[in-house]
């Protein structure tokens, strides 16, 4: 199971999906959301990767691992 976690005012919004045939709809929804968020300036990071692997920026939906955090577009404060 893969998790897409989008930071928002509620803390975060979670979308879970996997590569099985049963999760086709959830995967399509996750892919559409991922692409839309990145197109509007958000940044995605692979986190919690296991085996001591560091977090990593990701731009390709097919490269997502167990858990991904999407940070909304940042601006100068």
């Amino acid at each position: 199971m893969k998790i897409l976690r989008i930071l928002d005012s509620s803390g975060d919004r979670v979308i879970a999906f996997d590569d099985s045939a049963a999760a086709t709809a959830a995967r399509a929804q996750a892919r559409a959301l991922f692409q839309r968020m990145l197109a509007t300036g958000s940044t995605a990071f692979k986190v919690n990767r296991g085996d001591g692997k560091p977090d990593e920026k990701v731009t390709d939906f097919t490269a997502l691992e167990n858990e991904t955090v999407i940070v909304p577009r940042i601006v100068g404060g």
Partner: protein
Amino acid sequence: MQFLTWLLGRGFGRERQRSIPVHESTRPAPGLLEARAAAEVRARRLLLRLLDPAQRLEFERYGYFAVRVPGRGKFWILPSRVFNVLHSATGHSYCGTPQTEIPLSDLMLAQKLLLENNPELFFAVANHRLELVPGSTPEHSLPERVMRARRSPSRTRTRWSEVSMIPQVNRPR
């Protein structure tokens, strides 16, 4: 009765409504406060899970933590919404926040992820200002010093000419 109807019709009722203190009408609804508190709890749990062990220890003990930025050195992420990324070497603080409103712990997590993995983006958009003169404070006490200064009430500026007891002969009028 007719007089009362006339009085209300002339706007007496509206005046009564207007007399409600402003702070009461602008205070967030209790439900909103609870939702924000719940969001912060959720965000803090996520932050604690995604910090590395040293950062987690530091965050639990002091409320802030340090990140190493490739090619730039050490930065502190402070529990504040503005100018909360402090460069230990230069004393500059940076302000870069998500466009949408998120809980404070989510903000700190977002900044950690950006600084460690995509610092070019963060520094391209963040505003910065000099918070402390470099070398004026030992490095380990920088975050405490900044947070203490922000907590203390601001003082109004007073000109020396307004408090001096010495007559100023050449004072411009």
